[in-house]
């Protein structure tokens, strides 16, 4: 992105103060979101989400694995975000590593809940087939194709859509004769189990520019930010995760205000997203 001149910066900040952003949106308005599911045939579930000019693809692959010794009654989920150089030249090689890690950790935090598994969007104990021996390993891989700001929100939306699209094959387990023997597993090609994604949260990032907050910032607006707070809210209005991003310090009352604004805005965003995902799934069939 080419740097902004002083005049352009003033224009951006002034517009935000007057509740009229460069593309005509108000401060708390999202860009139009478009969802396509089933874009990757080899994956168990996939989705492609476009939020304005930001485009991301999420794919979910499930493989049979062994549960960890510490949690024998839980399956495993790992989230990995890759910022591709097609989005920005600096992401090539090791440049995008820091951003990828920040996004992966923020997504894991929002989707997997506390360490005991409470508040998790994906119920890990539903992924276990034979306790201590066989479980599903879910690999959620997201790819950023084009970046125009607000990557975290689009990634969360893509993962939600991909989870709705995911079908886990039904597995017939034959336990071995003795408890030490590895059970035999027979993965069916026909029947599939769908995920219940009503508890999967959406992430809303509020960017503070001057004294006001905006939702769904473009990359130009993000360059002018003082700080940002990403809040993950589920359909019941519960906060499932929060990350403060960006450098400057914030007064605690400001943070709490941002959280309540995010809660309010997210309800509308979740309903728009849900209807888009449902439409995409319906057109898929």
């Amino acid at each position: 992105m080419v740097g902004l001149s002083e005049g352009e910066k003033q224009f951006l900040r002034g517009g935000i103060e007057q509740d009229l952003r460069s593309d005509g949106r108000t401060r708390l308005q999202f860009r139009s979101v478009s969802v396509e599911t089933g874009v990757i045939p080899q994956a168990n579930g996939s989705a492609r989400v476009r939020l304005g000019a930001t485009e991301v693809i999420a794919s979910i692959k499930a493989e049979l694995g062994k549960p960890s010794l510490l949690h024998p009654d839980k399956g495993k989920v790992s989230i990995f975000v890759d910022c591709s150089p097609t989005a920005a030249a600096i992401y090539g090689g090791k440049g995008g590593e820091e951003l990828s890690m920040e996004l992966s950790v923020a997504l894991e935090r929002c989707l997997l809940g506390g360490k005991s598994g409470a508040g998790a969007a994906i119920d890990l104990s539903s992924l276990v087939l034979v306790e201590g021996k066989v479980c599903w390993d879910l690999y959620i891989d997201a790819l950023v194709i084009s970046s125009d700001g607000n990557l975290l929100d689009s990634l969360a939306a893509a993962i939600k859509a991909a989870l709705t699209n995911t079908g886990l094959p039904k597995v017939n387990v034959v336990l071995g004769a003795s408890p030490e023997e590895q059970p035999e597993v027979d993965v069916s090609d026909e029947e599939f189990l769908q995920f219940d994604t009503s508890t999967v949260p959406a992430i809303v990032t509020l960017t503070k520019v001057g004294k006001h907050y905006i939702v769904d910032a473009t990359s130009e607006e993000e360059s002018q930010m003082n700080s940002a707070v990403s809040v993950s809210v589920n359909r019941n209005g519960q906060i499932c995760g929060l990350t403060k991003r960006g450098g400057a310090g914030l007064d605690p009352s400001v943070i709490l205000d941002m959280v309540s604004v995010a809660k309010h805005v997210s309800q509308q965003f979740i309903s728009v997203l849900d209807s888009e995902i449902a439409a995409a799934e319906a057109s898929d069939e």
Partner: protein
Amino acid sequence: MAASTYSPSQGTERRQRQQQMRRLSIQSDWDRSDGRSFIQCRPAFLRTGAANAASGSAYAEFGTTKVIVSVFGPRESKKAMMYSDNGRLNCNVTFTTFATSLRGQGSDNKEYSAMLHKALEGAVILETFPKTTVDVFALVLESGGSDLPVIISCASLALADAGIMMYDLVSSVSVSCIGKNILIDPTNEEEVCQDGSLVLACMPARNEVTQLTLTGEWSLPKINEQAMELCMDACLKLAGIMRSCLKESANLSN
């Protein structure tokens, strides 16, 4: 007679302890394993000047969590980096291989370096050292729970010891939510079975939060009344302890 050997507990014993903790968590009041109340932090042991080679360093011991941070700088930025009016802050957090009960588990926490950077970024006055870099290296000697807050507090003490200009000391605490209870400064055992956590780093004198991370399900009043106010208050007290530690070392050198 053969001496009995010690082997770390895995599997059944640990699960039993976790199940017991889950049963206790449904009650509203129970004793923590080290006798603290829910709103009591572990006693803090802080020392500056732990590493001779560094411009500034600090050692922090909060119960079983032991961290040493050394600060190098301001020193010349690499030639490949562009000229910059502001200084650069480079943070790196590493765990020793013996820090966790299972060898090498510390490498799971690669994001701590970025989080430390974000927590300190708002406090360090970068304009005072243009063209140069300040390196902050944190080494976790033993991970006993609530690692990141201890790393942040120790790093800000080390920066002060190195003479880097800052708006205020950054102190940090974390709370764990188990059932309906909120416990401050959790140990490893408590963290493993937590339902949610909140890590807060703030500059108490300016009343500004530099880092806030929430995991698990929270409702808005719970975040505000219980967790955040508790954390801000604890951070204020911790900053007071850090200041007295700095004053002590200044007096000793005189």
